[in-house]
């Protein structure tokens, strides 16, 4: 991005909003470019390139608030757009809590280089992209006679955003992202065609897990689904694979937000400083991991990012408090949402924990389901393995787990020492006791 062009446009929009009647404004301008290449069964299935830009603006006028976005960044269009935005705002009702953050919250941004943008992304050629996607799929050639289809892909993108707030905030974010992955279908029993996949994502190309490992993992995960069937309903321990543990825990993030609490939709309301999980659970929000997928210098409100303990030895330390709902609750803002969430690892590996289990289910895949943030009740579809005497004895599918987060978290027995680092939510293997599985 030519920095000054977009930044200058941002200042122009900010000034125009003021002229047209906005007492305050906050805006963002983004420019992004991405390329994706998908291969299937040895030939290109899809090539896609995109370059896009967008602007969004929040208008504060006479105690009222609204927000607007457009991808038409021509000045003549923007002027009309802003005028309409200010006009519309005037028809809404006053909201005393809707105001820009205290400028003091902007101070204290990390000065460390988080290294979120790979300068080499601009040098990746079309041929290299094609070759990477192709190689990933070809790794599986001849590996299993039952393979019906292999899809593989490579995707890279560059994104740059400027943020301006009329009370003095100016922010700049630049990041790159690389993703590659494979999905595999194989012929199972009857008409069933089990499928599995694995993908990896990184800020820097050199950090991507190797193509061969990625493809082989996709195949192994697919083969693990062969012959899967449900078993009778039973309450027993649940071992949660590290790469899938976030699938359970992210549903707690909305109940941890000030908006859920203020709207009385959180089962975690009033639980600060209380024991909400067993002592085995410690979660830290850490925005400053170098090359981290969730790393940042500031959040959506412009609040300078800093480490924040969420849960320590099972005790709830903090909520995600954004400026608006913080104002409504009379609470000091912390941050509007998570950056990198780190579950503190335990002592043993997932495999060591598994080897010590008499009878349990290892969950390796989720399939649908939901959770009720107001009550904490959940019911989720699962697939994985029945473990007996430390061994995987039967592949299972078409089963559900159901319960309540308040009980489930107290039944967390152990966490592994194997955090899944390819996500902004870094979870190790987790073992829960007394989980209700429904099956046949």
């Amino acid at each position, binding site marked *: 991005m030519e920095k000054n062009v977009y930044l200058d446009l941002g200042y122009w929009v900010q000034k125009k909003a003021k002229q047209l009647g906005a007492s305050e404004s906050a805006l963002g301008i983004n420019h992004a470019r991405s390329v994706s290449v998908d291969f299937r069964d040895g030939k290109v299935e*899809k090539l896609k390139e995109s370059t896009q830009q967008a602007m969004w603006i929040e208008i504060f006028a006479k105690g009222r*608030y609204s927000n607007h976005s457009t991808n038409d960044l021509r000045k003549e269009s923007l002027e009309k757009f802003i005028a309409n935005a200010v006009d519309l705002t005037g028809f809404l009702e*006053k909201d005393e809590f809707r105001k820009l953050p205290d400028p003091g919250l902007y101070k204290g941004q990390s000065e460390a280089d988080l290294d979120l943008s790979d300068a080499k992304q601009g040098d990746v050629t079309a041929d290299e992209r094609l070759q990477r996607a192709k190689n990933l799929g070809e790794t599986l050639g001849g590996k299993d006679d039952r393979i019906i289809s292999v899809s593989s892909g490579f995707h890279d993108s560059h994104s740059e955003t400027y943020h301006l707030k009329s009370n003095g905030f100016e922010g700049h974010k630049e990041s790159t992202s690389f993703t590659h992955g494979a999905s595999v279908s194989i012929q199972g029993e009857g008409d069933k*065609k089990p*499928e599995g996949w694995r993908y990896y994502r990184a800020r820097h190309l050199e950090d991507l897990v190797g193509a061969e490992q990625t493809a082989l993992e996709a195949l192994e995960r697919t083969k693990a689904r062969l012959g899967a069937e449900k078993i009778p309903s039973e309450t027993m321990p649940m071992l949660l694979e590290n790469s899938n543990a976030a699938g359970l825990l992210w549903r707690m993030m909305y109940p941890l937000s000030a908006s859920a609490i203020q709207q009385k939709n959180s089962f975690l309301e009033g639980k600060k400083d209380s024991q909400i999980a067993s002592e085995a659970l410690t979660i830290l929000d850490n925005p400053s991991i170098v090359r981290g997928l969730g790393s940042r210098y500031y959040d959506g409100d412009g609040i300078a990012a800093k480490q924040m303990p969420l849960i320590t030895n099972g005790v709830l330390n903090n909520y995600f408090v954004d400026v608006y709902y913080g104002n409504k609750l009379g609470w000091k803002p912390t941050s509007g949402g998570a950056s990198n969430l780190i579950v503190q690892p335990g002592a043993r590996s997932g495999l060591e924990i598994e080897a010590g289990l008499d009878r349990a289910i290892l969950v390796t895949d989720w399939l649908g389901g939901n959770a009720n*943030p107001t009550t904490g009740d959940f019911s989720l579809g699962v697939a994985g393995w029945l473990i007996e005497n430390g061994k995987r004895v039967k592949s299972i599918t078409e089963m559900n787990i159901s319960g309540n987060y308040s009980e489930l978290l107290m039944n967390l027995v152990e966490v592994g020492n194997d955090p899944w680092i390819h996500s902004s939510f870094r979870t190790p293997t987790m073992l829960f006791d007394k989980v*209700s599985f*429904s099956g046949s």
Partner: protein
Amino acid sequence: MSRRDFVKITGTGLALATLPGFIRSGFAGVAPDDNPYKFYFQRFGIDEDTVQKVMAEALHYGGDYCDLFFQNQLSNSIRLQDNIVNSASTNVTLGVGIRVLKGDQTGYSFTEDISLASMKAAARTAAGIASGSAKKAPETFNATQLMNYYETQVSWEDVGIKDKVELLQAINDDVFKQDPRVIKASVNFSDSENYILVVNSEGGIATDYQPMLRISVGCTAEEDGKRENNYFDYSARDDISFLTPERLKILPQEAVARTVKLFEAQTPPAGEMSVVLAAGSSGILLHEAIGHGMEADFNRQGISVFSDMINKKVAKDFVTIVDNGTNPHVRGSINVDDEGYPSQETVLVENGVLRTFMHDRISATHYGVKPTGSGRRESFKHNPMPRMRNTYMKSGPHKYAEIIASVKHGIIADQFTNGQVNIGPGDFTFYVKSGSLIEDGKITGPIKDVNIIGNGPEVLSRVTMVADDMAMAEGGWTCGKNGQSVPVSMGMPSVLVSSITVGGRG
């Protein structure tokens, strides 16, 4: 209901025309005339010569086919929370997606700048899927004749913000009047107008104006220190006249009734049992159990559980399932798909026999059949693929009371919040937000928050009774596939599934 009636309901005597309709496209307002394409060409600032030049660039390396998808979408939303209408959002998107096909290979690029230079650059990028000598663009373009399944009288651009504010306030007041246990309410209203123009290298051209509205009411209630939250919503391809006095009355009533019902609700026991799916949004079962597996891209690739089942018996004789884009004003309806093919009713299962897949251009070419008007995309930023529109089962021979009476031990499910499927093995889930137990042929206590999991072909074979009360869902369903979301709907008569796994406890 006429527009005047709407004004009356919302309690304002002001003429709508005096209030600002917020979003204006930035284009001159051109009324359609004898040549409907002139309106769209002017809207996008293009002409036939421009289109031909861009197509020539797209076919520069000898692609088999190309199409240009122009789109201008104008969206508004407004929200009431904590008793005041304190937030509004608007969004304007404009752009063109350029697709080049070489066999079943796709080259895709888009630009938000509809200038000849930008479109030619994007076209050249998409052309890169092919390698050969250039082909010519068509010299003339012929209109595709279309039906209009969502004719409207009032543009959303002409509905003023003040009327929306008053509408939301009136609903909020009604929510609190319903039950003293209500402690929080929120109301969200959104509308959009989507203008599309599709033109292809075979000389086909089609346009569509696609309106949409969604209104949802959520509330939280408290009783003896316990809280429950639920919602009710409507969505339709329609104008403001959709919000009849009856619907405006039902919205707060249902939102509150569905919430307070949860205080009495239990989690059902775990395991396999009979499940009655109530008429309406239970069609989510069809969407997940059969719909996605019948999208032809998965079958062309041989990875769907239904790949080898065409003309095979998969359900009882009284089971007929269709995917239909022509239901008047229903959320998933489309006059034309995003490849320019007219919409239609596509019979997926006829009297228990699997008949046809849902096709886009690529899969139709692969199978040597006509496209079914199922090629849809989220926006100009995405390539089309086979997608569902409104998926539903037709009414059967049984009676609702007969179905309930036949169940010894099971549940009836009536409200759902989401579903998911694994295409290859056919395993699917859908989440029951609320329902009731059935014991010895009678509906007893309410249940809540339970996931149901099954296998598509197996569950279809276990549909043992179908009632004569088919109803379409009227809520705001959105279907996600390969990272693209499109509006859909679904429907179902009351149905008995003899056995399926319910994710209860114990």
